[in-house]
């Protein structure tokens, strides 16, 4: 699996919303179960940034940290996270139409 946002130009900085979308997409595309290490690598973030974003997503109830087979910690999308991802494209169009 390739790191996300591969459709972007080289050296183009991702916006906060794009990073959130990428993290959620990685989780969804990994059958909704992914280890923190793999998630960090595939979402193309430094450890510090990854901690920051995942903390925020957890506090907003978009992702949850679960136990997989009683041993490992894995991240999974919550229904709110799935809904956010479904509506993301629409939300970007909404922001563009208003110029914000």
């Amino acid at each position, binding site marked *: 699996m390739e790191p996300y946002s591969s*459709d*972007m130009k080289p050296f183009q*900085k991702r*916006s*906060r*919303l*794009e990073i959130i979308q990428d993290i959620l997409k990685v989780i969804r595309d990994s059958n909704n179960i992914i280890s923190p290490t793999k998630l960090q690598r595939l979402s193309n973030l430094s450890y510090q940034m990854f901690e*920051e974003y995942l903390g925020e997503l957890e506090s*907003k109830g978009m992702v949850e940290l679960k136990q997989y087979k009683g041993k490992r910690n894995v991240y999974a999308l919550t229904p709110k996270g799935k*809904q*956010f991802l479904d*509506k993301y494209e*629409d*939300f*970007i*169009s*909404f*922001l*563009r*139409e*208003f*110029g*914000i």
Partner: protein
Amino acid sequence: MTAGLFNATLSEEFLNQVSEGVAVVSLFDIIFSLLLLALMVGLALQIFRETSKIYSFMEYEGLRYFKNTFLFYGLANFFLFLLILMFLLAKSSTKESLYLLGISMIPLFLLAGVCFWFAKVNLLSSISWKMVEGTLGKRFHKFLYFIFLMFLTLMDTLVYILISLLLGEYYAFGYKAFIFVFILLLIRSNMRSGGETKPITNPYYLGLILLFTLSFLGNISMLHEGKSAELISYAFDLLTLIAYVIILKGIRKWSRILLT
């Protein structure tokens, strides 16, 4: 006894001044302004309510500033509505109504001014957020950024006043036009960001541009005097209403799409 007489004379003088001020404004103007302001309050608060629903789902910081803009516009127009209502009451020329107008005029005017200031800062924050969001992670940094924009908006007003006093109104208008072009460029860059290449089918951003034009170039009526200034002021109010209607229409459409 002397103090009592002095107070009575002062109070009498005060009431006479207020009464003269009220006499200058026609009843038609007062009722027309009341209607316009009531509409503006209603529309601004409706935009705030609808945007709050979208914000509670997406929690995008730029949208938070956008919704707060309309809360402050709603409040500012509400304070102006109260002020004009006091004028209407004072038309009855009773001592109590004149006194009420006299004592509430300055506080209501100040409250409206502060709310307009906050609305402007929030509007500016909403369009500039995309540009700075990557660098402002901590809550304290966001707060500092907001304070910076408050200062910038205040400075903009002060610079405008200074230029108009030292160089004249037309130079001041040129300065405002320069600021306006800068704001247009910011809005344009937001419309192009997000990696989207699809054309924009519904130009709701026109409502935002209209609002910016009115709040940042709002002093154009000062270039004229008398009836033409009054007409320009009414035209500005009507354009503000149009901007609110455009934005509300867009927000309603998008809240249906995003929240179902």
